[in-house]
């Protein structure tokens, strides 16, 4: 067996970052939602909000913990596995990551302690402020990391000196590189939707079990508000992002569409099987002209096929093609859920229709799957480059042996599978237990019997 360090490092990076992104996706959404819930509690004095907060802040804590430990791994992998990349891009990407740590990580980590443990140690106002700060921290963190990631897709504001080292020439061009705004809004919205469907799914489960109904009503209503208003917005943002990709990474779009020949008035392939060997998409279910309409906003617009690029410039077609369909499919199901919710709301059936609660329960993991699929599209679609058009992934590797990477990959898979299993187990337990039944039975947010001071 041949141990290729580049291939194994790619798998390891893909595995560890896919695992990692699940947690921030939920913490970005949960932090903002918890801030809203706590705000509503302070405003209305309705203790149901407080009880919802108490349940979800525990889930938030478990999620955040797993996000932290899997995130620390990421900050070292650039060096351990992609040292040539780090050496060449450090001048440009280093500051973005450093700003992420300085402006977001410390903020989140310090105020998270108060958010989880500080209920009895600070005033209500200060506790609310801590929640707000943590929520802001998660978004600021997303800002910097997406800026860095976007720069690798659409590098700008740099020059190459000393042979091959990237040097900055304009920080604003680097930070606000051409694909960054699209990627940022698409991802934040995705995190919010993921959280909404996660919360809505749990609410559906409570309805089905006829438990915690006051809490479930609030949770489901808030989740469905997101589905009604934000899911369609996400489709629109996704479309903008796609057009931006067409401008800067047209080969990725051709892989997404599964189009091989450059043509005018290209049809949209709904489903099919891209055959890389023969350079055709088999069993294609097509809608005439639609690809041209969607991508160029004209019936006869020209859409480039994959054959326009030499074979070593094309991304792997199959995973990009299918991941895209998974992502869009889930997005459409989310919009559909919103429509169903509107109809049920006006027929007064939102809290009574069992089938809808089953539907919501089934949609619980939808956001996570869509986010992973979306990242697969954009990251695999960027190949064979690590810095698009300039530096190839194969040039980025560290001087490590394939065998070493293989062992570390196996270790990560084993440990992460185990930790993930345990994390899901504990989250399910928390959900099963539900919100604290009666205010006053326990003190504060964490079942303390008395204030510790």
């Amino acid at each position, binding site marked *: 067996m041949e141990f290729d360090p580049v291939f194994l490092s790619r798998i390891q990076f893909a595995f560890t970052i896919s695992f990692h992104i699940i947690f921030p996706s939920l913490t970005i959404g949960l932090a903002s939602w918890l801030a809203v819930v706590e705000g509503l509690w302070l405003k209305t004095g309705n203790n149901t909000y407080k009880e919802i907060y108490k349940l979800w802040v525990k889930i938030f804590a*478990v999620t955040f*913990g*797993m996000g*932290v*430990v*899997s*995130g*620390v*791994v990421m*900050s070292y992998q*650039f*060096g*351990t596995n992609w*040292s*040539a990349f*780090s*050496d060449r*891009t*450090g*001048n440009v*990407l*280093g*500051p973005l*990551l*450093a*700003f*992420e*740590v*300085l402006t977001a990580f*410390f*903020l989140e*980590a*310090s*105020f998270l*302690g*108060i958010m*989880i*443990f*500080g209920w009895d*140690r600070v005033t209500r106002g200060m506790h609310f402020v801590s929640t707000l700060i943590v929520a802001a921290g998660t978004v600021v963190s997303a800002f910097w990391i997406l800026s860095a990631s976007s720069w690798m897709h659409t590098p700008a504001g740099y020059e190459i000196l000393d042979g091959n080292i990237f*040097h900055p020439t304009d*920080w604003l061009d680097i930070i606000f590189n051409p694909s960054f705004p699209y990627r940022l809004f698409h991802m934040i919205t995705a995190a919010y939707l993921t959280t909404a469907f996660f919360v809505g799914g749990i609410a559906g489960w409570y309805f089905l079990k006829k438990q915690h109904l006051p809490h479930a009503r609030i949770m489901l209503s808030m989740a469905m508000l997101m589905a009604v208003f934000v899911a369609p917005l996400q489709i629109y943002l996704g479309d903008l992002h796609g057009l931006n990709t067409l401008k800067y990474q047209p080969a990725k779009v051709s892989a997404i569409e599964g189009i091989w020949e450059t043509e005018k008035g290209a049809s949209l392939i709904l489903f099919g099987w891209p055959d890389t060997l023969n350079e055709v998409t088999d069993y294609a279910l097509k809608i005439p002209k639609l690809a041209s309409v969607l991508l160029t906003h004209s019936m006869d617009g020209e859409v480039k096929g994959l054959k326009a690029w030499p074979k070593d410039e094309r991304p792997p077609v199959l995973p990009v093609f299918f991941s895209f369909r998974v992502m869009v499919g889930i997005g459409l199901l989310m919009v559909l859920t919103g429509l169903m919710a509107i109809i049920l709301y006006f027929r007064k059936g939102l809290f009574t229709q069992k089938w809808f609660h089953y539907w919501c329960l089934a949609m619980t993991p939808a956001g996570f799957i869509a986010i992973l699929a979306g990242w697969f599209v954009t990251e695999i679609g960027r190949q064979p480059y690590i810095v698009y058009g300039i530096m190839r992934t194969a040039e980025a590797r*560290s*001087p*490590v*042996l394939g065998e*070493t990477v293989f062992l570390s990959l196996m*270790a*990560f898979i084993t*440990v992460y599978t185990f*930790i993930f299993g*345990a*994390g899901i187990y*504990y989250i399910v337990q*928390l959900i099963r237990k539900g919100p604290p039944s009666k205010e006053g039975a326990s003190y504060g947010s*964490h*079942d*303390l*019997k008395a204030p*510790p001071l």
Partner: protein
Amino acid sequence: MLDFSPFLDLPLIWGGIIAFAIFLYVVLDGFDLGIGILFPFAPSENCRQKMMNSIAPFWDGNETWLVLGGGGLFAAFPLAYAILLPAFYIPLTLMLLGLIFRGVAFEFRFRTNPEKRLFWDYAFHFGSLIATFCQGTILGSYVEGITVSGRSFAGHPFAWLSSFSLMTGVALIFGYALLGATWTLMKTEGKTQDWARKVAYYALTYVGFFMGLVSLWVPFINDDIFQRWFSLPNLIYLSPIPLLTLGLGMSLIISLVKKKETAPFFLSISLFSLGYAGLAISLWPWIVPYQISLRTAAADPKSLSLMLIGVSIFLPVVLGYTFYSYYVFRGRSSHQELY
């Protein structure tokens, strides 16, 4: 474009900032890793609960300094980052896996029935132990020097393994145990406190032994280091460092005998800072020892300038609210369920 290099020595300033971040990491995560190291030896479940509660609000903030150390090195000295991380591929990976186990143990332990906690207790302990040992080993192997060719690491995947690095790995376990014990001493009372005081004595004995051993060994690793410490007039200028270390060690013993509660922790930190200063003096001006200097590895001055602004604004803020969070959770730790 923004560039302070004409009037500021940016590589030097950044070397200082990274050294400061790593030092804060060592001290802050040091005491909570130390708690993990001592965890199974605590006299009762009650004590363990108190120890865990005393660090639960802080551990991820503490670990963030490790991210700043790594991220900062990438940003300020990308060449050093690109050489050092592959050189330490195996111990770094083991350290990260150790940190994962101990990190999730905080949350998971609290959520498990007391009868079934044993697994997470040991995950916490061994995770902390492995992470500490790997950090010590990395430090030792760093001091011994790295094989470099061109702009990359050129050594063997196991080049980090040597008798010296294994020794420093063990030494750091006792170092962190001392920090953990004196922290526990400060944050608890009664039986837990008595136990922590006893542990601090033992740990201090070993720390003294290992500090002596390292001080005698390091000058023979590299001739320049020997010259730096033992040639005249350096011998005189640098003599305050070993003397102060001895003095601090003595006052630490005295503070333990006198049953002081907060002094031992801060004296232990001072002991660490002197050891750290000693290493910094030995290794100057290298960032990849004996191969690449701070200046050679430094990032573009424009990058360093931008980040300097960021650090000047945000580092005081970070330190401010880190302090605030320690202030909010001041006082003795309770054994009650925090979560």
